[in-house]
């Protein structure tokens, strides 16, 4: 029984993550007027610096749209931008863990 439940849960959780990833990618492209399509942002490609080519102003912009949309306040704590913005996947994980909306 628990195995059935577990296998039922897995695909839907993955689907949720995919949906959120697509949503966040869309938010980023729209907020920054980027010239790539949301689907073109590879989930593990660096967002900051040489990857997607975002700079600190962009990071601030994303922080604001993310807080409005998901109620998450980004914090640096002991991490640098590199962690949360290390990739789209990491950003989505952070949002998933901390969202209040």
């Amino acid at each position: 029984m628990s195995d059935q439940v577990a296998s039922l849960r897995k695909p839907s959780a993955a689907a949720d993550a995919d949906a959120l990833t697509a949503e966040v990618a869309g938010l980023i492209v729209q907020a920054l007027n980027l010239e790539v399509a949301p689907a073109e942002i590879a989930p593990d490609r660096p967002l900051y610096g040489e990857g997607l080519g975002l700079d600190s102003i962009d990071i601030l912009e994303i922080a604001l749209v993310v807080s409005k949309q998901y109620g998450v306040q980004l914090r640096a704590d002991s991490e640098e931008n590199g962690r949360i913005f290390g990739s789209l996947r990491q950003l989505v994980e952070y949002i998933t863990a901390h969202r209040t909306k």
Partner: protein
Amino acid sequence: MVAYRAGAPIRVSQFLNDVRHLARSFPPCTHVLNACVDRYHFTVGLAAALASGRVSLLPSSQAPQMLRQLSLFAPDAICLSDEAEISNGLRCMSYPRERFAATADPAPCLAACGVPEVDEAQLVAYVFTSGSTGTPLPHPKTFGRLIACVREQARRLDLTDSARWALLATVPPQHMYGFEASVLLPLASGHALCAERPFYPADIAAALERLPRPRALITTPVHLRALLSSGVVLPPADLVLASTAPLSQQLAAETERRFDTRLLEIYGSTETGQIAIRRPTHTAEWRLWPGVSLEVAGEATWARGGHIERPTRLQDLLEKTGADRFLLHGRVADLVNIAGKRSSLAYLNHQLNSIPGVEDGAFFHAEEPSNSHTGVARVAACVVAPALDAAQLLEALRERIDAVFLPRPLLFVERLPRNATGKLPQEPLRSLAAAHAKPATIA
């Protein structure tokens, strides 16, 4: 108290100890490129250089090309850093992280607020601006003038002697505004600087909240806009200081309301340092620093006198409204100011056209984005470079210019819309930008 880190005080005796030890640790050199990110480390580095007769270099950007050019300017310079080693052709030195044993007794030679005995004429630092020829221009800053300037700032900001203020800043200490307001001002007037440089709105609010009062926030319009629209609860401040770009009336008024305090705005430049101040909710007029005079001749305004090292042509259009007052009317068209970082279209074009494979290229001002929270307009570029793709071009640009100036959009064309005399009017460029949706397109 000379500084706070995460709300914990750092005493003057510790500071002087750290300065003494660092000064003794420098390898042979006469210049120190101070790339420290932590504001306390930066200040120790600055004071150690000063105390040992060395000149600090404060670069306007960390682009590899800039740092290489600085190494040509000062071949013996060492690069002091408190983060990962910067490979740029300079000898590197890590800021010594281990705590030096504090002396049991307070340091005997406690000069006023830890500022060492220094001659007025001593060269403290060079700050750099981007010249139109593509080489960074050095601007010397001498001790007496710097101190006079920031002591006047303390008076203008009404940082009274009776209270010790804590000054939190979101700006880097290498930038002229941050250098004056967040490093020299506290040092010269007996207030405390803050080691951290918070970035996200939630972190700025938390860092401010941790500080004892009276406390001030030294920041920029970009960060203020972000703070006010973030939804973060803002703790009360006793002063907010802004600079690097004009502030709208609405933003100023909301800032004063939400922080429950005065907002003062500074006007200045890398060459001159700060030269005027105003409270935007009360007046549009700027008041000059003592001794500073403006000479307006058509589109050119020259500033000289007071603490200004040399007569300087300003990059904005000013209108004098009195002997020591003026109004600001906007920038000269060539100037580029993105989130407080300054460059010029001429400099950027020089860099672009120096890239192998670029046959012709031009930067221009892009439209301000309407949906932006931060409200930052970028520069765009048109380029004729049949053998290059966007990634290669951007990588080459990244070597030469600060990341904020990377073009958005970047348009590849067969030919730039130059007119009969070879000039490039802005309008055809903007039309090209409007017509193109994707970066890599052949016209």
